[in-house]
């Protein structure tokens, strides 16, 4: 039956994460932006509380057990919780300890041993992070064209190449790194490796300065003859060697997107809602109750509300499909494209409403700087269009 009511568990997690976002994240939001990092002691503290950005509950794997009624709702839970965290502050939300975007590929493609080895390290004793490294300087949106080379050697692979725009890439305990055993093989040649911090030949060459999300670390990673043992090949050698196996790192990357795009979309929604609510509160305090400014504001808020709501519903739909085990690549692309664009628009409209006082250190300008990347990473808006169109033309045997 069609329904838009939250389950009890969903309701609880929303309330809890909202409380945390409002009382723990938001108060340090502007300060963390100014510092360019999230204070260590704050991270220690929240890690002790066990608060993480839990993307690894997002999974299409069939062996997830579901709740006591046997209903899997992990994806819906994750998008609901993520929206609230990003509402608090998206840069801080992305900096929360945990596997981050590195979680889904391990969850979906890792061996049981790998899952245990990599996903159980996120403990209360100290904050730890995972990371996900796909993008390269010359590849951009073209995930099929990665140039990082994995050369088979005795007992493992030597990795050579460079990765850019890696969220938490410098501080991560491990990074899921995509490389190719042979660029000529295209997608089929791709492999995913879990490379641990401190591995010789693996360095974080630089942290980049960005338009926004300044409190969140964005790293460039360098791999120079970096030896990775065979046990760190995601899924293990056998997975790729199976007869007729079409499995490659490329599939892992693509499947990861199906899980992470709704998460990224919910962050954009959280940002938009934060800007909307903040501006609405100011407007409700200081605005005339009628007249042309009232009407201007009314029209803009109604439009923003509708856009935010629409983006949330398509995101829920993508998450619902994932929970049902139904392919959701199209919906994942839709929610990402819709939310990324919508959120920038809502932040710009909010600033328009605030007018010049928007330059006086209100959070809305920060949200505007933060939000643009949500239309860029995890596949640009253009890539989402391509994915959507590809699905739409599939019945006609045309690959656009």
């Amino acid at each position, binding site marked *: 039956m*069609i329904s838009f009511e939250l389950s009890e568990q969903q309701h609880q997690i929303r309330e809890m994460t909202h409380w945390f976002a409002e009382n723990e994240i938001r108060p340090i939001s502007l300060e963390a932006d100014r510092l360019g990092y999230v204070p260590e002691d704050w991270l220690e503290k929240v890690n002790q509380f066990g608060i993480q950005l839990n993307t690894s509950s997002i999974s299409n794997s069939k062996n997830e057990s579901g709740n006591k009624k046997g209903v899997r709702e992990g994806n819906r839970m994750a998008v609901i919780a993520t929206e609230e965290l990003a509402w608090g502050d998206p840069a801080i939300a992305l900096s929360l300890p945990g596997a981050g975007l590195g979680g889904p590929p391990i969850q979906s493609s890792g061996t049981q041993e790998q899952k245990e080895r990599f996903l159980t390290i996120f403990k209360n004793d100290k904050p730890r992070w995972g990371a996900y490294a796909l993008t390269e300087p010359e590849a951009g949106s073209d995930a099929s064209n990665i140039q990082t080379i994995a050369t088979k050697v005795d007992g493992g692979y030597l990795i050579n190449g460079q990765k850019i725009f890696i969220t938490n890439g410098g501080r991560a305990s491990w990074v899921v790194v995509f490389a190719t055993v042979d660029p000529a093989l295209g997608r089929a040649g791709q492999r995913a490796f879990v490379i641990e911090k401190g591995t010789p030949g693996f360095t974080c060459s630089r942290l980049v300065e960005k338009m926004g999300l300044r409190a969140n670390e964005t790293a460039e990673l360098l791999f120079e003859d970096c030896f990775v043992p065979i046990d760190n090949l995601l899924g293990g050698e056998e997975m790729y060697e199976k007869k007729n196996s079409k499995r490659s790192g490329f599939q892992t990357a693509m499947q990861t997107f199906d899980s992470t795009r709704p998460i990224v979309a919910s962050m954009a929604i959280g940002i938009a809602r934060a800007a909307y609510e903040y501006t609405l509160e100011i407007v*409700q305090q200081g605005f005339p109750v009628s007249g042309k400014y009232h009407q201007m504001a009314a029209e*803009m*808020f109604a439009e923003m509300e509708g856009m935010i709501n629409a983006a949330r519903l398509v995101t829920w739909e993508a998450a619902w499909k994932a929970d049902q085990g139904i392919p959701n690549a199209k919906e994942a692309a839709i929610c990402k494209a819709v939310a990324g664009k919508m959120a920038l628009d809502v932040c710009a409209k909010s600033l328009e409403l605030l007018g010049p006082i928007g330059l006086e250190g209100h959070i809305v300008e920060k949200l505007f700087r933060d939000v643009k990347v949500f239309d860029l990473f995890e596949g640009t808006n253009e890539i989402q269009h391509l994915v959507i169109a590809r699905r739409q033309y599939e019945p006609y045997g045309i690959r656009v």
Partner: protein
Amino acid sequence: MISFEPTDEEKAFTEVAYKFGGEDIRRSARENEQKGFVHHELIDQVNHLGFLTMEEPESLDGMQLPLISQVQILEALCYGDLGTVQGFPGLGDGASVLRVIGDQQIHEEQRHFVKENSCTIAFAEEVAEEMAQSRLKLTKSNNAYMLHGKSEPVRLGNIATHLIIGIKDDAGETILFWLDKSRNKWEVETCDNRLGLREANIANLSFDEASFSENQIIAKGNNAEKILQLAYTRIYILQAAKQLGLMVAALDYATEYTATRKAFQQPLAKFQGVSFRIAQMVMEIKMVRNHIWQAAKATDDSHSNAEGYALSTMFAAHKGIRFVTDSAVQLLGGHGYVQEYPVEKWMRDAQAQVILYGREREFLTRRGDQILAETEKKVMS
């Protein structure tokens, strides 16, 4: 629990509706438009399938379906053609007024008529503050009402046996009442409408000092306004669902056309100028459908946000249908503009529909007024 899964019953209904819409309605659409009314055989068919009484209360022998079911079925029917569906006789938007009034409050006389005869209702409403002065006036003297002047164009006006009219009297009180062609006189002026929904029997209704009896009054004052508010919430959602059906039709048609036609030695679909627009159409449709479903559920559950959702939905559906039908014409190029292909009709029907069912910006300002008045500011569902 958040779910996008229709019930089995809804799926079964919808399947029938898609078949009927996509085949029978689609096939007869051009002919209906040319005639200016829907072919009686098609009406017999849709009557037989029961799709004309979904909104009617059970007491009037209607199906009284929840909105969430109706919207899915209406989408499927209008996948065939919006104009034809809008031309179906029956209670029309008046059904939502009757649904809101509730069984008990429907006057016995009207109940009898609706049940026993094939009654078609046109619904005219000129209560809302409007941009221009209303040409229709209701005056009250000695406790008798008199209606004079010309209504705005109303759907089914041409073939209506009954009217439901909501209007403010000269003292500013809203009066909601029935008129009956057998007793009350009105002139029908068919609109010189070449735009769209030509088969929807749109007409101006003219009244020359028409009076009506007390028992034709459904409600007055706040009560009447409350009924209209609730009825419009339903009407908006139902109309948005109809618009969605046309949007899906336009998307599918344009998808097939661009997948099968070539330019520059490539299927049109291979050009991002084409495929990205198709992707945008897909997104619009997803969003409009979700809006509709959410608003329908909220209304079925008597959620306090229902009217707000309906307003947002209608804004999205108006914007969406204009974008998607225009896009379909654009993607067909010159073929989009000629009558051998259905999309030019769809674009015209879409535009007629949006100007008949409320200005886009009005939905925004109405919803916006609610938002600014609310103390609870969260955009949470």
